């Protein structure tokens, strides 16, 4: 009944196969049975084509690696200036945090709060929270707060906007290039790597792996 995307046709051990019996599509509520998927396969809704389930290789391990890398890069990206502007012998530094602080100083506190949350707080909670949850899943130490933390991470997923901030940095560099000397800061390199790592993290992380462990913990298999 399902349409599966087959990337690997070779046989895998049954351990890596994930069997979910029944799922309702989150976009159209259609009940459908998902067969055991092999690594690299994805199941899509037969009615509205929504992605229902992916079975990825080593999703937990890879995501944990990306999250730890991301956290290190996040710290470096916040330590030094991203960009500096040199005009008339004066150098003005711009860090990730100073973007929102300067809006506080310019008496736009709401804008400052929006930028603070989307570029610092949500990316930081995503990285730290993902590391904590994945370590708990890996070491079988799930507790009653794991579900709460992971639900918070899933609902704030769309609000971490570092990749959009990177586009904004590019736009600013081109805009300012005519007027003054733009100096690339040390953090800019870490920041670019951070954006790549976050993208890889969101691609490699399979939320169903975490939910399946939680279902085992609570003993409510479907």
């Amino acid at each position, binding site marked *: 009944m399902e349409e599966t995307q087959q990337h690997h046709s070779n046989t895998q051990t049954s351990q890596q196969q994930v069997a979910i019996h029944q799922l309702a599509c989150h*976009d159209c509520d259609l009940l459908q049975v998902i067969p055991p998927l092999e690594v690299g396969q994805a199941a899509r809704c037969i009615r509205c084509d929504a992605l229902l389930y992916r079975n990825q290789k080593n999703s937990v391990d890879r995501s944990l690696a990306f999250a730890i890398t991301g956290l290190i890069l996040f710290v470096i990206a916040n330590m030094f200036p991203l960009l500096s502007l040199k005009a008339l012998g004066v150098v003005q530094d711009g860090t990730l945090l100073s973007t929102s602080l300067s809006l506080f100083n310019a008496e736009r506190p709401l804008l400052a709060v929006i930028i603070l949350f989307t570029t610092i707080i949500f990316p930081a909670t995503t990285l730290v929270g993902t590391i904590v949850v994945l370590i708990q899943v890996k070491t079988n130490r799930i507790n009653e707060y794991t579900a709460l933390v992971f639900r918070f991470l899933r609902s704030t997923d769309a609000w971490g906007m570092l990749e959009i901030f990177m*586009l904004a940095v590019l*736009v600013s560099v081109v805009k300012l290039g005519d007027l003054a000397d733009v100096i690339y800061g040390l953090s800019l390199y870490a920041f670019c790597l951070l954006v790549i790592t976050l993208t890889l993290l969101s691609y490699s992380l399979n939320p169903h792996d975490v939910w399946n462990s939680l279902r085992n913990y609570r003993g409510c298999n479907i």
Partner: protein
Amino acid sequence: MNFVTAREKGLIACHFCSTLCKLPENITTEDGEEIELHCPCCQSEIHSRIPNSLSRTWALLIAAIILYVPANTLPIMTVTLWGDGQPDTIMSGVIHLMDGGMWPLALLIFIASIFIPILKLIILTGLMLSIHFKINWKAKDRTVLYRITEFVGRWSMVDVFVIGILVTLVHFGNTATVSPNIGSLSFAAVVILTMFAAHTFDPRLIWDSCAEIRKRSNKESQ
């Protein structure tokens, strides 16, 4: 083909972990209020459909449409060069970039700040009206339109970030400063409100209204 949704089977799929839960027979208390149901796996509150999805989406959408006017007519930032301030709206900023020969950048800002917000407002309004007037038009395509609005909406924030970066970097006393104006706040509010509107909109309602129309036409033909 006969499609069965989770609701028709008396099941609720959890929004977060997709666990299917049986809907109890008595979902109202003695006072006639609906009882809160919680997912056995992740403890989140579960609903068959997002509660009051239509009225909440309308409220957010109308607020966004109202704020769209000041966002585009009021200046978003003032660039002061040698004490000579020049307020810029979104559109005049795009025109300045085109005059300066930076048309790829102008196109990018035009798409992110003007085209995407208006596309989102039109698509969401259209989807809401199609449900209200029970129009039986390509449910799958409408779901795809919904997914586009959900995916593309956050990229409009790029202009807000550019303002933040410019305010931080261009800070040279009397020579050159950039200050944010009230238009940037209304623009950020439009982006955030439409993101919330897309989030509270329940795409399953599209399929529900189509199923209802089909049921009614079946009855009439019998």
